[in-house]
């Protein structure tokens, strides 16, 4: 009996010891892109899960109680920031009753503060729709902006797990190098299409335009978050015709009818694009996502040219 007790104690010690030695940082991110980034830098020292699924609109997530359960044991919450998650994340953080991930704690990282935001409104008025006071939050579709947050995430992981600091640094350096090489390739592929006028449903692709010298002439939405009326769609048709727009970019999760309506009356082509890692099977990681965006765009432009 005593021996059994000793064995149990021994087993318990082993289990406890191994759990400490293998203590992984439990990271929860708001988007799959951030999850991919943390996974690439953290490697075997982190467990990562994303709150939103790739085909979900990150603006319109509901603060589902089961998501609070996901967050309750998190050591680190990585979010986009720039008010993208403002409608649901504060409520989830409170509901998780996890003091570690509260705003201002080391366990809460908003990466949006570390990039150069575009589209910062000059006046803030809700009659302008769902405006983001600190700028357009969809920065991850520009690989240069995305690369900026590699070091931000690395530093935070090092702070939470200094023992694996060199490992994180090494992985981050490798990722940055890979991104640089790919950026060179993407820029080259996109170069012939500089100045191409484009229309999208929502202001999702502005950073993508900025990086590759494309010109966004407008959106099909009346204002951010406000769906188009028939009158507005007629104006959008004029906009598409007037600017000689050949391509309408459409986010995977938005209603296709407005884009189809405009495309049918203007002859413009609709390109449905994923906006996050995992949105289509080929976009299995960040580089895969950018490959899909660049290749789909280039492919469409080539068919139009023929």
């Amino acid at each position, binding site marked *: 009996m005593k021996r059994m007790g000793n064995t149990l104690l021994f087993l318990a010690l082993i289990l406890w010891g191994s759990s400490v030695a293998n203590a992984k940082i439990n990271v929860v991110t708001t988007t799959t892109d951030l999850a991919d980034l943390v996974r690439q830098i953290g490697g075997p020292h982190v467990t990562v899960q994303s709150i939103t699924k790739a085909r979900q609109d990150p603006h319109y997530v509901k603060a589902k109680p089961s998501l609070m359960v996901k967050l309750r044991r998190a050591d680190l919450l990585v979010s986009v920031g720039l008010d993208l998650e403002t409608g649901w994340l504060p409520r989830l953080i409170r509901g*998780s*009753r996890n003091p570690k991930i509260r705003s201002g704690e080391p366990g809460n990282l908003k990466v949006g503060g570390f990039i150069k935001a575009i589209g910062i409104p000059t006046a803030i008025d809700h009659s302008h729709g769902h405006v983001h006071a600190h700028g357009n939050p969809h920065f991850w579709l520009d690989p240069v902006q995305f690369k900026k947050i590699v070091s931000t995430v690395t530093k935070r992981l090092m702070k939470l797990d200094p023992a694996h600091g060199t490992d994180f640094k090494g992985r981050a350096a490798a990722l940055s190098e890979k991104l640089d090489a790919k950026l060179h390739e993407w820029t080259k592929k996109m170069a012939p299409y500089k100045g191409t006028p484009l229309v999208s449903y929502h202001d999702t692709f502005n950073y993508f335009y900025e990086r590759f010298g494309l010109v966004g002439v407008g959106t099909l939405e009346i204002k951010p978050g406000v769906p188009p009326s028939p009158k507005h769609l007629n104006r959008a048709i004029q906009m598409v015709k007037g600017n000689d727009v050949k391509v309408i970019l459409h986010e995977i999760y938005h209603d296709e009818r407005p884009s189809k309506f405009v495309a049918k009356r203007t002859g413009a082509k609709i390109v449905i694009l994923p906006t996050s890692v995992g949105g289509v099977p080929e976009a299995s990681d960040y580089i895969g996502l950018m490959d899909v965006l660049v290749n789909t765009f280039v492919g469409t432009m080539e068919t139009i040219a023929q």
Partner: protein
Amino acid sequence: MHAAPKAPMRVCIALSILFGILFVPSGYAQTTTMQERPNTWNPQISAGIVFLGGYSTADEHAHEEQHGLESGLQLQEVELRLMSNVDPFFRGVLSLAGHMHDGVMEVGFEEAFLSTLAIPDLTIRAGKFLLNFGKSNLRHTHARHYLTAPMPTQALTGADHLLGVGVSLDYLLPLPFFTELNLQAVRPAWETGHTDDPGGHAHGSDEDPLDLTYVTHLKTLVDLSDTTTLELGGSYMGNQDDHGHLESTWGVDMTLKWVPLERARYETIDWTTEYISAHRDGVKGDGLYTSLRRQTAQRWWLQLRGAILGLTRETDSRRYRGETMLAFAPSERSAIRLQYALETLAHSDTTTDDHHDLVHEVFLQFIVSMGAHPAHAY
């Protein structure tokens, strides 16, 4: 001689006025944007207005047990709400609300409480807050799914909103799925809302301050799939009456919700059913309602709710109410809702004219919310 030196001066004045006119608007715009940032030190402020107008045939017959809406125009709710983290340990919420009763606006502090931020798994609240009884009491007037609280809830709890001054412990159980246990001990602070309250259950100042009401609420939510959740809830409210007898009210509820991943913004369905049973002095009985809400487009909802009061007992005055609503929300911050309701009272003695027992209601409601971004409640 005198006019000559003044001429350039006039030009200067005219120019400065002109410049003033030209630049004041842009200058003004700049100061407002500049102020957006320092405002971050202030509490989050939100304000809401709920305007209601319509007609109910109940007024023609002056029904005694009519719990529906009053004909005419009214402000159903005006609310000013301040929220802020106080320090790393506490968060404060304060709301000033006005409701219209018989054409008179009554304003008061609806909620005022502190809640803890730094305790893992547990939130402790102290102050005045909404009691976590049943499925609908935590919803403020502007967030309700229909124009009024469910008829059985309203009739069996005897209040429009149950409020109390006290403490609340809210514990997230260490389970792989969401399960929350909420315990509340409060001094009741609600008005019955009805001058002809059948139970005389008014909570006035003559009550013993140590007469506490206790509320227990268990809520669990399971993901059946990526798109569907099942929520089960049970709540109990108990207190001792003046003679030391236990008075209690309890309820169970079930909600199925469907939110498609990609089209979460365009279509959703939720179906809620709740049963409530009251065993209090003056209010004894039970009731059930079921509600189906269908979001058909980004901004449109179609809803149906049916309710029975006196389901298994109190068969001498069973009451039915059916409601149908069409809601249009131009944005997340505004909504226009049209509701038609039909209510009927079935007497066991048929001396009264049956025709008089049918009540029709048609109401139109406008809701706006200003300030802090409203949360996307699930």
